[in-house]
C-alpha cells in the first residue's frame, strides 16, 4: 500500500471540509471513532428501552459507602457536607450533580441536614435546582432551606479557607467531595478529618487523587466518578451509556494492542493508517 499517495488523495478530498490537526493528522480517525462510539450508544440505549437484562456493573466500594455515611450523620444528628468541586459546568461537575441528586434524596428521606457548596456561581442555580428537586420528589418541598446551598467566592483559596471553616464549625459527620479539585483537595480532606467525618472523595484530576487516597475513608479512582451516575441510579438508559463507554475504551485498547503487535514485528501500518488525514 502506498501511504503517501493515499494521504494526498484523502487530503484533497477532505481538506476543504473536515477538521484535523496539522501535526497529528488524526481528523479522520477521530471521526471514525466518534461514529463508532455514537452507534454503540444508540444500540445500547435502544436495547435498554426493551426488557432484556442489561449487563451487571462491577462493584464500586466508594459509592456503596455513601449510604453508610448519610446513616451515620442521621445517627449523630450532624450535617452532611457536599462539595461540588472546583470547576464550572464541566463533565466532572455534571457527574457530581448526578451523585448530589442521589445523596439529596437520601438526605430528605432520613431528615438529615446537608450543606452543599460550590465554587462557581454558574453552578449555584443548577445545584439549588437539583437539591430542590430531591425535596419535591421526597415529598417534603417545604423542607428545602435555601441557605444550605452555598456560594462563597470563586477565589481558589478563599473558597478553600471558607470550606475549612464551615467543615470544622458545623462539625460535619460526612464530607462528600466529588468533582474536579486542584491543590486544595488536601485542605478539604484534612478539615474533614479534623471534624471526624466519614470522607468519600472522587476527582477526575489524577494529580489530586493521591491526596484523597490517604486522607479519606473511601476514594473513587479515576473514572469511577463518571460511572457513579449509572451505578447509583440503576437507571437502564444510563447503564446503557456506561456500556457504550466501555466499548469505546475497548476500541482504543484493541487499536493499541494491534499497534503494539505490529510495531514489535517492525511494521508501522497501524500508526500510518491512523494518521492518514
Amino acid at each position: 500500500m502506498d501511504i503517501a499517495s493515499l494521504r494526498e488523495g484523502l487530503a484533497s478530498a477532505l481538506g476543504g471540509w473536515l477538521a484535523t490537526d496539522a501535526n497529528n493528522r488524526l481528523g479522520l480517525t477521530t471521526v471514525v471513532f466518534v461514529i463508532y462510539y455514537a452507534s454503540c450508544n444508540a444500540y445500547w440505549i435502544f436495547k435498554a428501552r426493551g426488557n432484556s437484562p442489561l449487563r451487571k456493573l462491577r462493584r464500586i466500594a466508594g459509592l456503596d459507602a455513601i449510604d453508610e455515611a448519610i446513616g451515620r450523620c442521621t445517627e449523630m444528628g450532624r450535617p452532611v457536607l457536599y462539595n461540588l468541586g472546583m470547576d464550572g459546568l464541566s463533565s466532572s461537575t455534571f457527574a457530581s450533580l448526578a451523585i448530589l441528586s442521589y445523596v439529596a434524596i437520601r438526605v430528605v428521606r432520613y431528615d438529615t441536614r446537608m450543606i452543599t457548596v460550590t465554587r462557581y456561581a454558574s453552578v449555584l442555580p443548577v445545584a439549588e435546582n437539583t437539591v430542590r428537586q430531591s425535596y419535591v420528589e421526597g415529598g417534603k418541598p417545604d423542607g428545602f432551606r435555601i441557605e444550605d446551598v452555598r456560594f462563597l467566592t470563586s477565589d481558589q483559596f478563599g473558597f478553600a479557607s471558607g470550606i475549612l471553616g464551615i467543615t470544622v464549625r458545623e462539625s460535619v459527620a460526612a464530607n462528600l467531595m466529588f468533582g474536579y479539585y486542584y491543590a486544595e483537595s488536601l485542605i478539604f480532606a484534612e478539615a474533614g478529618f479534623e471534624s471526624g467525618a466519614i470522607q468519600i472523595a472522587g476527582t477526575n484530576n489524577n494529580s489530586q487523587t493521591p491526596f484523597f487516597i490517604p486522607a479519606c475513608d473511601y476514594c473513587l479512582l479515576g473514572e469511577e466518578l463518571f460511572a457513579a451516575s449509572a451505578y447509583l441510579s440503576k437507571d437502564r438508559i444510563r447503564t446503557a451509556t456506561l456500556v457504550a463507554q466501555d466499548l469505546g475504551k475497548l476500541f482504543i485498547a484493541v487499536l493499541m494492542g494491534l499497534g503494539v503487535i505490529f510495531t514489535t514485528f517492525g511494521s508501522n501500518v497501524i500508526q500510518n493508517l491512523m494518521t492518514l488525514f
Partner: protein
Amino acid sequence: MRRTLPVALTFIVGVTAMINTYFVNPSLAAFCTRYLARTSTVSSAWAVGLGTLNLMRIHIRRINRRQDNWQYSVSLVVTYVIFLFLGVFLVGHQNNHFFQAFFNSIQPHLSSTMFSVLCFYIASAAFRAFRMRSMEATMMLLSAFIIMLGNVPIGAAIFPPMPQISDWIMNQINTSSLRAMSIGLSMGGIAQTMRNLVGIERGHLAAE
C-alpha cells in the same frame, strides 16, 4: 413545554457548538464564536450576582437573628461592601491603582499562606495514612518513598542509584498508568457530557 423547551435549547446549543469543531466551515465558526460563545460569557456573568446575593442573604440573616458567629458575618459584609463600593466608584474600576493596592495588600498573603498550609497537611497525611496495612497501601508508600528520596540530594547521598530508580518509576509506571487513566477519564467525561446534552440527565432543571 416548561420542561421540553429548555431541554431542546440545551440540545440545539450543544450540538451546534459541537458540530462546529468537526467541520471546516468559516461562517458556522464565526457564528459560534461571535454569538454562541459570547452569549455564554455574557449571560453567565449575571450568575456572579446571584451567587453573591446568596452569600449576602446567608450572612445578613445570620446577623439579624444573632445566630452563632454573627460578628464574623458583620466583618464579611463590611469587607464586601467596601470592596464593592471602591470597585464600582473608583475611576477605572478593578484597574484603579488604589483598588489594586488595597486588594494586593490582602489577597496574595491570605492566598499563598492558605496554599502553604499544605506543606504541613502533606506531612501529617503521610504519617497518618502511609501504613503497610495492605498490598495496595504498601505499593503507594513504596513509590512515594522512592520518589521523595530521588528528588532531593540526600537520597543520592544515601543510595547513589536512587534518582535513576525514581526516574524509572516516573517514566515507566507513572506515565503509562496515568495515561491509561486519562483515556478512561476522557471517555467517562464524554459519556457524562453526552447524557446531559441529550437530556438523559436533567437534574439541573428547576423544580416547579
